[in-house]
């Protein structure tokens, strides 16, 4: 157990494919993800990034292939078990509990690891959760929003809240699908800073279609295109790759 926990590879996919009917969304992807660093998955829209992300986070089962987390086969593990294994995520489209307060959103996230089926005690008596929720809100910069209803937050704040909820699992692996989607440049900068800070204590896998955004902070980059793994390597290697250049050609803003 200690040997696997210390292993430099935290997550591995071996020949994973995903079909939607006859459509091949992902074709035979084998990749390893290094512990303790940020790895980014990039590619144009429709490349299959979210599909791959969903395989990594247990939301989809691959049509073929295997997913291993810390040496354990998690291919057929139920989605809700992932948080308990130490893998948490935020979705591409914001996923929060809209009518609950910001604080309660995070508190519920924390409660999953302490009390799930207790129907009798008042929830306020579960020790430590309210305080820990406040700490996490401070970490993601939402301390002064704690009593608001989550759906009343600005878009960027909701994205930060979702990351706060993912952190409730105290995950060793944090999966983020386009965390800056729909954000203003200023909000984007704040979010990227937060991600870098979080990555100092845990492994982060980041899905992004804006190449420029992740090149500076990633140790490794995977490039998906039409469901294929087009290239992988350090940001410098990927930037020099001819096929990658061709895919991103003309997309100046990236």
């Amino acid at each position, binding site marked *: 157990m200690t040997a696997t926990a210390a292993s430099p590879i935290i997550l591995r996919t071996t020949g994973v494919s995903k079909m939607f009917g006859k459509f091949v969304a992902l074709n035979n992807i084998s990749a390893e993800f290094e512990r303790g660093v940020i790895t980014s998955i990039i590619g144009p829209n429709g490349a299959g990034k979210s599909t791959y992300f969903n395989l990594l986070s247990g*939301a989809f089962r691959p049509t073929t292939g295997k997913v291993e987390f810390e040496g354990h086969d998690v291919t057929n593990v139920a989605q809700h078990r992932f948080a308990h294994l130490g893998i948490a995520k935020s*979705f591409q489209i914001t996923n929060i509990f809209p009518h609950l307060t910001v604080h309660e959103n995070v508190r*519920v996230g924390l*409660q999953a690891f*302490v009390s*799930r*089926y207790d129907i009798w005690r*008042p929830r306020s008596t579960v020790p430590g959760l309210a305080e820990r929720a406040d700490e996490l809100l401070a970490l993601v910069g939402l301390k002064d929003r704690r009593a608001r209803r989550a759906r009343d937050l600005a878009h960027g704040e909701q994205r930060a809240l979702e990351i706060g*909820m993912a952190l*409730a699992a105290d995950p060793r692996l944090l999966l983020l699908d386009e965390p800056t989607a729909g954000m203003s440049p200023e909000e984007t900068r704040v979010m990227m800073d937060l991600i870098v800070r979080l990555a100092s204590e845990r492994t982060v896998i980041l899905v992004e279609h804006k190449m420029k955004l992740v090149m500076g902070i990633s140790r490794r980059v995977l490039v998906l295109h039409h469901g294929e793994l087009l290239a992988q390597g350090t940001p410098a290697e990927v930037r020099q790759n001819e096929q990658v250049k061709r895919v991103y050609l003309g997309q100046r803003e990236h």
Partner: protein
Amino acid sequence: MIDIAPTIATASSRSYSWFDLAKRHRVLLASIFVLIFPFVMPFTALAVNILIYGLYALGFNLLFGYLGLLSFGHAALFGTGAYLCGIAIVHFGLPWYAAIAIGVLSALAMATLIGSLAIRTRGIYFAMVTMALAQCVYYIFYQAVDWTGGENGLRGINVRAIDLFGFHFDFINPLVRYYVVASFVILAFFVLSRILASPFGAVIEAVRENEARARASGYNVVATRLITFILSGGFCGLAGSLAALHLSIVPIESLHYETSGMAVMMALLGGMGTFFGPFVGAAVFLLLENLVSLWTVHWQLFVGAVFVVCVLFFPEGIWGTILKRIKP
């Protein structure tokens, strides 16, 4: 100008705490209401009926209003509670309290069975599967004539007196009967309130709010649904048991899909997802039924019209709308 903001803030936080206080003591307030209720009703038997169906709708609302799952088969839970309570008395001569316990336990068992089969479906499919399973239950009870009396219903559930802690209560006296039923309803208020305030209550909210997020947060959504369905069945089974004692007979209609639909209507009428709404819904429904049927046999048309108006213009239900208005 500068002074205005703090004044408003103080006023609203003060009135908020008033609302909050009422919410915190909702069991007490609901209980007080139940205790004075028979004196504002035209006749006591109707008040007892409202209590029983209010409890039934309350149990249904745990699943429908709080978890967001529409069952069209809750008659099976109400009816199983009623029949098994009645059978315990008629065929086994058990005392009333044992019969109620058996009614509740068998409703829990029935909910476990139906829930396990239906819980993986969602939306309209869940409604259809629960309805189909409830029809199976109807058919089984209908056929088991020796035990259930078939289409004539189960007759002869005679409980004349309730002896408890040295006290003797005359169960024939309508007001005494009302307060016996009311004490179970108050107990149910208390239990429901505990469930809603518990950690599991938070899980119910989370699943209703966003299933995908609840799952990603580490909650087993299917298990949560099943447990809620079973808990809901417990309340409905208690309501059924009390109905059996109150009517001295279990009509086969207890298991009919109209009884399932009644829970849906009552919850919507009163306000789904509110603590007291199902009760208000049951009261309005049964009052309309009783009063309107005095002057026309087409009372169902009338109740239907009120229901449609309510759903169209007060989608939060009667109680839900009142709450929204008075909420600071």
